[in-house]
C-alpha cells in the first residue's frame, strides 16, 4: 500500500509497509498513481498528453521513470507487501511484561477546569490521596512484573500530584534505593497544573524527573476560560512565572508544555506560538476529549480549520528552525532513521498490558482514561490482574484488530490509535474514533513533509 499527497510544494509518496518516503516530481507522482492500474503504454500516453507543453517530458524520460518505479518496487520500497499482521498478536500474547505505570498520586485537584476528563481529579469517585504504602507496593508490583526490561517509567499523575508532594518524593527515593539492586532504570514524569510549584519542587523535579508535563493551554484568555480555581479565578498569571522558573532551571532536560484545544480555539497555533513567545520550546497540544454534546466539543465543521492549522504550524516550525529559533511539537517529532521497530508500530499503545494506571486505592486500570469505569477495573497491585477478560480485550488491540486500520496507510504510525478515544467515541475499544484518525493522519502528513523539506534543503546545501 502507498499513500500520495501534496503539501507545501512537495509531492510525497509513502510506502506503508517498508516505511519508505519518496519525494517526487509531478510526472513521477502521476505515474505512480496509475502504475498499478494501467499498462506501461497507457501510462506513457496519458503522461505525454498531460505534459505536452513540457519539453523534457519525452517518451524515453517517462519510460525511464517507470523503470525507476519498478526498481523501487523490486527493492521493497514501493507497493511493498504487509507480512506483519500475525506478528502483532504473537508478540502481545508472548509478552506478559509491565513496564510503565501511571500513578494516580492524588484524586483531587486545586483547579476546577470545566473540561477535565477526570471530573476535577476525582475520576467520578471520592477525593483521595495515595498513601506511601500503596505507592511503594505499586513500585514493587512494577518491578516484580517487569521481567528483563531495564527501563521502567512511572508518571506521577492526578488530579494534581503536587497536592501529595511528600509522597511523590518519598516514592522516588524508594525507587532510587532499589533500582540498582533490581537492575532497573526508573524514568519519572510529573504532570502538573503548576499552581503549587515552588523552589523545592523545581529543585527536585529537575534532579529526578526525566520529563515534566506542564499544563498550559496557551493565550491567557484561552487558558483562563477553562483552567480556573474554585473561586473562579484564572490560573494563567499564577502558573506561567512558575513554569518559566522551572524550565529555565531545567538545564535542557525533557519537558513539555501541554495544552488542550477545543471548539473555542480552533486557531490553536496562536496558542502554541504564544507559548513560544513566552520562551517555551517543547510543545504539545491535544484535541479535547469530551462528549459530543458539550458546547466546546470539536465538530465536523472545525476539521478544515484544524487541518490548515497543522499546516501553518509545520511551515512556521520550518521557518523558525531555519532562523535558528526552533520549537518542537510533540506530534511532529519523527526520526525516520532511528524510529520505532515494527513491533512497536503494530502492538498498539500498550494500555492494559505493558502500561496500567494505579488509583490511590491500589486498583489497576488499563490506563488513566479508564479509571473509575468498573467494567475495566483489571485488579489491584496486591493480587495483580484478575479481570482477565478485560485485559484480553486490550491485549487484542493492535494495528490490525480493526478492519478500518487494515486498509489505512497510517496504521504503522498510530498502531491502531487510542483505545480510550475509541471507547468514548464508539462504546467499544475495538471501534474507530474517525475524527481522531483524520487529525492524526493530517499530523503525520505534516510531520513527514517537514522531514522531506529538511532533507531537500540539506541536499541543496551539499550541491
Amino acid at each position, binding site marked *: 500500500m502507498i499513500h500520495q499527497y501534496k503539501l507545501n510544494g512537495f509531492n510525497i509518496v509513502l510506502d506503508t509497509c517498508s516505511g519508505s518516503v519518496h519525494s517526487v516530481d509531478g510526472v513521477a507522482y502521476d505515474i505512480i498513481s496509475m502504475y498499478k492500474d494501467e499498462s506501461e503504454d497507457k501510462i506513457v500516453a496519458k503522461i505525454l498528453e498531460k505534459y505536452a507543453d513540457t519539453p523534457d517530458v519525452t517518451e524515453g524520460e517517462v519510460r525511464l521513470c517507470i523503470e525507476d518505479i519498478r526498481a523501487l518496487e523490486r527493492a521493497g520500497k514501493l507497493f511493498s507487501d504487509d507480512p506483519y499482521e500475525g506478528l502483532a498478536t504473537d508478540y502481545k500474547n508472548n509478552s506478559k511484561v509491565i513496564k510503565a505505570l501511571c500513578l494516580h498520586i492524588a484524586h483531587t485537584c486545586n483547579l476546577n477546569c470545566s473540561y477535565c476528563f477526570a471530573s476535577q481529579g476525582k475520576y467520578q469517585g471520592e477525593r483521595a490521596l495515595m498513601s506511601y504504602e500503596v505507592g511503594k507496593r505499586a513500585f514493587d508490583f512494577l518491578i516484580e512484573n517487569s521481567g528483563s526490561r531495564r527501563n521502567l517509567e512511572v508518571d506521577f499523575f492526578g488530579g494534581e500530584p503536587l497536592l501529595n508532594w511528600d509522597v511523590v518524593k518519598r516514592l522516588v527515593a524508594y525507587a532510587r534505593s532499589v533500582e540498582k539492586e533490581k537492575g532497573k532504570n526508573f524514568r519519572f514524569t510529573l504532570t502538573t497544573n503548576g499552581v503549587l510549584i515552588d523552589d523545592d519542587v523545581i529543585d527536585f523535579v529537575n534532579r529526578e524527573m526525566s520529563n515534566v508535563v506542564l499544563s498550559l493551554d496557551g493565550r491567557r484568555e484561552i487558558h483562563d476560560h477553562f483552567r480556573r480555581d474554585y473561586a473562579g479565578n484564572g490560573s494563567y498569571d499564577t502558573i506561567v512565572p512558575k513554569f518559566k522558573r522551572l524550565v529555565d532551571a531545567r538545564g535542557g532536560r525533557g519537558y513539555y508544555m501541554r495544552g488542550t484545544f477545543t471548539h473555542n480555539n480552533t486557531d490553536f497555533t496562536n496558542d502554541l506560538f504564544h507559548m513560544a513567545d513566552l520562551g517555551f520550546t517543547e510543545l504539545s497540544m491535544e484535541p479535547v476529549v469530551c462528549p459530543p454534546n458539550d458546547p466546546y466539543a470539536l465538530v465536523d465543521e472545525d476539521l478544515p480549520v484544524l487541518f490548515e492549522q497543522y499546516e501553518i504550524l509545520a511551515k512556521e516550525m520550518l521557518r523558525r528552525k531555519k532562523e535558528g529559533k526552533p520549537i518542537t511539537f510533540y506530534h511532529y517529532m519523527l526520526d525516520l532513521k532511528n524510529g520505532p*521497530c515494527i513491533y512497536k508500530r503494530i502492538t498498539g*499503545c500498550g494500555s492494559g498490558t505493558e502500561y496500567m494506571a494505579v488509583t490511590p486505592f491500589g486498583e489497576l486500570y488499563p*490506563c488513566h482514561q479508564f479509571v473509575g469505569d468498573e467494567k475495566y477495573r483489571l485488579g489491584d497491585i496486591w493480587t495483580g490482574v484478575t479481570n482477565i477478560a478485560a485485559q484480553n480485550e486490550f491485549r487484542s488491540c493492535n494495528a490490525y484488530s480493526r478492519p478500518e486500520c487494515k486498509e489505512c496507510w497510517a496504521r504503522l504510525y498510530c498502531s491502531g490509535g487510542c483505545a480510550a478515544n475509541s471507547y468514548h467515541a464508539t462504546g467499544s475499544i475495538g471501534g474507530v474514533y474517525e475524527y481522531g484518525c483524520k487529525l492524526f493522519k493530517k499530523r503525520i502528513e505534516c510531520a513527514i513533509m517537514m522531514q522531506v523539506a529538511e532533507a531537500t534543503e540539506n541536499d541543496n546545501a551539499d550541491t
Partner: protein
Amino acid sequence: MNRIKTIETRDIACSVKNGGCGECQTSCQSACKTSCGVANQQCENDNK
C-alpha cells in the same frame, strides 16, 4: 532517479529480526495522554 528522491528511513522490514526489545518509552507516557501515536517514539535498541 532524477524524478524520485528517496529519503533515508529505517528499514522496517529488517526490524522484524532485530526489533522488539521493548526498552522504548510507552507511547502514552510522554506528552499526549490522549492521542496515541507510536511513530514519534525513539528506538532504544543498541543492537539494531
